[in-house]
């Protein structure tokens, strides 16, 4: 398998998560015109049934590490399992999503295998069998192109940066089981509690329209008008880090470099200055609309439409106008 690109697939609620399908699409494009193959490994408990889905999304073959110890992510346990996989398959490249799992496990695996890792890539090309990965850095102000000299080449890839292939259930591929053989005595880390923050309504990262607001709102109570606008648009509500740090919104609403990456068709940024770290989370949006009272705010530089005005004077009328446009 020295010529395989191995995608570490993730499963939620019995299905392949979107980022994994995107990774398979990205891996297929990397393998194009070479003798490289695309493999997918699924780690978890009761995930075997998802292997066919990975093949339908572009994997030539799938590997399944099915073990009750892998039911929930634990860094020590997952590292052991991935070491086993890497040893058995010796892939040329291992791709993770930049997810809870990927951002924790990928560097750990890379250091253990004494190889390099490139985090949070947004573009990937192949040059002479080596991955050229582009990643935002300096808070989104710059882009770096990195390559890993050693094998396996490991990278994590940002959500929505790669297009998935059309699902094709007629695709055939072999599914092989790998025994995790977890040595519980070597597990030092214990997960004692997990608290999910499940947002009501549309999930931020899946929403087609997002309305985000920033510190310029002046207080958490003013999110009422933002939610009304979002309601009229069928949008999810996001926020800048300043707002989450102030405790006006939960951390799970944060859009940006250290928050969520969204790429909706329409992103409306209200009273957000447009710092590069915020833009890192929304610059993939197809259309950005900014409402800001400062005509020089950076957010306008990335926007298609803008209104220079006090948000308190335009958001309500905008909500009404949207309702009229939609209704008529």
């Amino acid at each position, binding site marked *: 398998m020295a010529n395989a690109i191995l995608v570490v697939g993730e499963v939620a609620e019995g299905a392949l998560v979107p980022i994994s399908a995107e990774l398979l699409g990205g891996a297929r494009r990397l393998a194009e015109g070479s003798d490289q193959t695309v493999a997918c490994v699924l780690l978890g408990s009761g995930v075997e049934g998802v292997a066919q889905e990975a093949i339908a999304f572009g994997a030539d073959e799938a590997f399944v590490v099915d073990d009750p110890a892998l039911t929930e992510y*634990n*860094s020590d346990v997952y590292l052991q399992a991935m070491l086993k996989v890497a040893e058995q398959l010796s892939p040329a490249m291992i791709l993770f999503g930049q997810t*809870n799992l990927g*951002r*924790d496990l990928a*560097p*750990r695996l*890379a*250091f253990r295998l*004494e190889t*390099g*890792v*490139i*985090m949070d890539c947004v573009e990937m090309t192949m040059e002479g069998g080596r991955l050229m990965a582009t990643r*935002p*850095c*300096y*808070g989104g*102000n*710059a*882009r*770096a*192109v*990195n*390559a890993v*000299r050693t094998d396996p080449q490991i990278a994590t890839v940002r959500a929505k940066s790669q297009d998935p292939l059309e699902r094709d259930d007629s695709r055939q591929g072999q599914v092989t089981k790998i025994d995790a053989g977890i040595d519980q005595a070597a597990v*030092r*880390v*214990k*997960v*004692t*509690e*997990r608290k999910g*923050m499940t*947002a009501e309504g549309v999930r931020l990262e899946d929403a087609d*329209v997002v309305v985000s607001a920033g510190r310029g709102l002046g207080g958490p109570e003013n999110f009422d008008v933002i939610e009304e606008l979002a309601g009229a*648009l069928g949008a999810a509500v996001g926020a800048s880090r300043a707002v*989450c740090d102030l405790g006006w919104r939960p951390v*799970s609403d944060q859009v940006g*470099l*250290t928050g*969520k990456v969204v790429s909706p*068709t329409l992103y409306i940024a209200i009273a957000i200055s447009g710092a590069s*770290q915020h833009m890192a989370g929304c*610059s993939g949006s197809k*259309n950005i609309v900014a409402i800001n009272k400062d*005509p020089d705010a950076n957010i306008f*530089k990335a926007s*298609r*439409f803008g*209104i*220079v*005005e006090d948000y308190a004077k*335009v958001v309500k*009328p*905008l909500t*009404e*106008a*949207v309702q009229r*446009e939609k209704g008529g």
Partner: protein
Amino acid sequence: MHIVVCVKQVPDWDIPPSSFKVDEAAKRVVSPPGVAPVRSQFDEIGVEAAMRLKDQSPDTKVTIMSMGPEEARDAIKHSLAMGADEGLLLTDPLFEDLDWYQIALVLSTAVKKLDAVDFVICGRQAVDWDMGVTGTGIAELLGWPALTIGKDVQVNDGTAVVERVLMDGFETVEAPLPVVATVSNELGEPRYPKLQQIMKAARKQVTVWSAADLGLDASQLGEEARKLTLERLYIPVSDSECEIIEGDTPEEKAQNLARKLSEAKLI
């Protein structure tokens, strides 16, 4: 308990995007003249996390470790003024252009050389490269567990307990010391040093170690030993042209925007 906090000095991130410049030939960021480097934001939060542990158990020793040029001393001094006990500067021409494997090698070797370290705290990522692998790398090279992206860090009876920030929630993880933890801004604001502390910190000695002091040389730290290469560094161009929606009143602007969005089939 002996805690080591890794603090990196980085170019000031809080500058207008228009003054952010890159020297593409040298593949380096060029700071505007007169703008001094600053402490990487998450590393200051690491110092805060360590100081909170010291507040609870005053016999805790906190060592601030920074790898970088002579100027990185300023970052160490500031952290000492926040209440840390000792400073360690790792400086050597060999440390100037390292990849993350080499960085973690230098830092983990220094941790081994220091006196009985129980806990290493790093920021979740440095605000220059945003790579987010150094803490984990140090842990792996020391053979310790890594508890990453913490918003709360506690030690109970020799066990580190870290509440981690997940994309959609939180999780609490624990592991027996020694461990490495990385921290995120959700932990809270770093404390502000008082004038008296700043003066006291100014008088403190900072230990300086070179590559030779760590028993490292070019065979590990040279260009040839890099696992990662930087092929290119550039500023992305945005081709967006913003159309400012006009109107005599705020209501009119709102209506005009709604119409535009409707025409563009966005609503």
